[in-house]
C-alpha cells in the first residue's frame, strides 16, 4: 500500500489533466458525429425524394385509380416536385428580369429581415416571460390563478391575432417617438409565442432551489429581491436555458407566420407566400425559400445551444456551480 507523497499528488494531477483533455476530445467527437448524422439524414431525404419521383408515372396512375389511397400520395411530376438539381441551381439564378441579383441573395436578405424580427421577439418574449415568472412566484395564489390563462393564451391561433396586431400597430401607436414599422408588430407576435415556454420553465425554475437554501436565506433576513437575485434566479438557470432553445425556434416560427398572415413585405414569410402564389412559373423558388426558412430555424437553435455551452464553461472556469 503506497502512502501518499507529494510526488503522488503531482502525478495524480497530471492524470486528472489528461482525463479532462480526453473527455473534451470525446465531447467534440460527439458533436462531429451528430453533425454527421444530420448530413446523412439530409442525403437520405434527398434520395427518398428522387426515388419517389422515379416512380412518378406509376404513382400518378394510382392516384386516379384509387382515389382514397391516392390522396395520400403526393404528385410527383416535375412541376410539383422539381428535381433537386434544379432547386439547387435556382439559387444562383436571377430572380427579376431587371437585374442580376440571384435568388440566393434575396432569400438571404429576407432571412436577415425575419431573423431581426425573431431576435427581437425572442428577447422581448424572454424578458416578458421571466418578468411574469418573477411576479407570479411572489404569490402562490396569483400563480394558481393566472397560470391556466397563460396556458390558454397559447391556444389562440396566430392567424387571427397577427393581422389585428399589425393594424393596431399602424393605427394606435403614433404617439411613440419613433415610427412603428410592421416588422416590429411581427416581433411582438413572435414574442407572444416565445414568452410561454420561458414563463412556464421560469416558474418551475424559480421554485426549484432546495428548501434548505430558502431557509438559509431567511435566516439572513434578506429582502425578497435579494432572495430572487441570489438564490432563485441562479437556481432557475438550467430550466430557463432549456426553454431558451425551444423559444429560439418558436420565435422563428412566430416571425414567419406573423409575416405571412399579416402580409408584411421584406421577410421570408412574404417570399414564401409570393413564390407559392406564382408556383407555376417557378416551383424551385418556393423550395429554395422554404429551405432558407428551415435553415434559419436550425441556426437559431444552434446559436442558443452554443451560447448555452459557452455560458456553462465560463461559469465552470470561474468556479461557480453549474
Amino acid at each position, binding site marked *: *500500500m503506497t*502512502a*501518499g*507523497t507529494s510526488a503522488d499528488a503531482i502525478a495524480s494531477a497530471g*492524470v486528472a489533466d*489528461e*482525463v479532462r*483533455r*480526453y*473527455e473534451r476530445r470525446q465531447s467534440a467527437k460527439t458533436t462531429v458525429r451528430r453533425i454527421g448524422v444530420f448530413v446523412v439524414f439530409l442525403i437520405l431525404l434527398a434520395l427518398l425524394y428522387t426515388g419517389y419521383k422515379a416512380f412518378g408515372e406509376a404513382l400518378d396512375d394510382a392516384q386516379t385509380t384509387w382515389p382514397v389511397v391516392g390522396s395520400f400520395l403526393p404528385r410527383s411530376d416535375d412541376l410539383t416536385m422539381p428535381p433537386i438539381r434544379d432547386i439547387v441551381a435556382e439559387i444562383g439564378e436571377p430572380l427579376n428580369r431587371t437585374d442580376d441579383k440571384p435568388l440566393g441573395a434575396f432569400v438571404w436578405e429576407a432571412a436577415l429581415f425575419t431573423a431581426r424580427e425573431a431576435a427581437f421577439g425572442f428577447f422581448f418574449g424572454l424578458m416578458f416571460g421571466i418578468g411574469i415568472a418573477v411576479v407570479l412566484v411572489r404569490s402562490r395564489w396569483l400563480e394558481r390563478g393566472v397560470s391556466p390563462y397563460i396556458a390558454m393564451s397559447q391556444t389562440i391561433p396566430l392567424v387571427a391575432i397577427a393581422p389585428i396586431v399589425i393594424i393596431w400597430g399602424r393605427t394606435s401607436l403614433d404617439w411613440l417617438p419613433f415610427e412603428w414599422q410592421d416588422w416590429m408588430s411581427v416581433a411582438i407576435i413572435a414574442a407572444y409565442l416565445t414568452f410561454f415556454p420561458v414563463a412556464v420553465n421560469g416558474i418551475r425554475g424559480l421554485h426549484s432551489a432546495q428548501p434548505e437554501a430558502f431557509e438559509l436565506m431567511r435566516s439572513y433576513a434578506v429582502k425578497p429581491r435579494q432572495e430572487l437575485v441570489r438564490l432563485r434566479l441562479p437556481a432557475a438557470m438550467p430550466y430557463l436555458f432549456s426553454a431558451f432553445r425551444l423559444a429560439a425556434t418558436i420565435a422563428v416560427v412566430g416571425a414567419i407566420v406573423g409575416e405571412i398572415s399579416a402580409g408584411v413585405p421584406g421577410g421570408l414569410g412574404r417570399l414564401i407566400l409570393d413564390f407559392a402564389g406564382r408556383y407555376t412559373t417557378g416551383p424551385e423558388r418556393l423550395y429554395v425559400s422554404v429551405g432558407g426558412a428551415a435553415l434559419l430555424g436550425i441556426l437559431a437553435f444552434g446559436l442558443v445551444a452554443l451560447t448555452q455551452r459557452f455560458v456553462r464553461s465560463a461559469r465552470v472556469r470561474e468556479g461557480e456551480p453549474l
Partner: protein
Amino acid sequence: MSATETVPAVEATSVTKIFNRGKPNEILALDDVSVAVGRNEFMTLIGPSGCGKSTLLRLMAALTHPSDGEISVHGKPADQARQDRDYGMAFQTAGLFDWRTVSQNIELPLQLMGWSKSDRRERADEMLDLVRLEGFGGHYPRELSGGMQQRVAIARALSFSPSILLMDEPFGALDEITREHMQAELLRIWDETHTTVVFVTHSIPEAVFLSERVLVMSPRPGTISAEVIVDLGHRDFDTRESEKFFERVTAVREALRVPEEPA
C-alpha cells in the same frame, strides 16, 4: 482439507476488474481478490469509497464480469446462478417501482418467474408479515417512509426464497435510530430464513453488529486488506453496549486505518 467440506455459497477466485481499459481514465477497481463465503454465513464488506466493495458485490451478482479470475456460486458460474435465480438483491435506494403497490412490488420477481396469481398473493402476504408491514400491501411506495420502503425492498428480495442475499448499503439513507432497528430486523429475518448474506457498508458499528466475519477492503487498487472475526454470538439490543462490541469495532477501525501521509 476435509473430504466433506461443503462448496462455499459464493466464491471469488483471484478476481480482477478494470474499467475503461486502455483509456486515460482507466481504473483498477479490484486487484486479485479472493473471497469465500460459507453457507448461511453473514459476511460484510467494509471500506472507504472507491475500494471496490460495490464492484465486488456486482461481480458476485453477475451484473458485470471480471477482467480476470472467476466467480462461482454454489459451484456454478455466476451467470448460471443468475439464470437460476439464486440471489436476491437490495440497494441503497430501495429501487421500488413507483407505479406498483407494495404487494405488487414484492410480487415482481414472482411474476417474472411465472408464479400463478394466487401463489404470488399468498407469498406477498407472507413476506409482508415477515418484514412487519402487514396491511400496507395496497399502498404505493411514495406513501411510505424510507425505512418502510427498505423493508419492502428486502421483502421483495426474499420473496422467491433465494439462497443468497446481496445487499449494497441498504440502510445508508436511513437515520441512525431507524437504521439500528432495521439491523435487528434483518438479523431476525436472516435467522428465520437461513439465507447466506453478503452485505456491503461503510458503517463500522453496522458491520460489527450484523456479521460474523468482516472483510476490510482498501482502495487504489481495490484489495482485501484484513479479515476481522466477530464472535459475539447471538446479537440483541444490549450487544451494542457490550465491551466486546467496542473491542471488535476498534479492531475493524484499526484495520481500516490508512497509514498517515508524511508531513
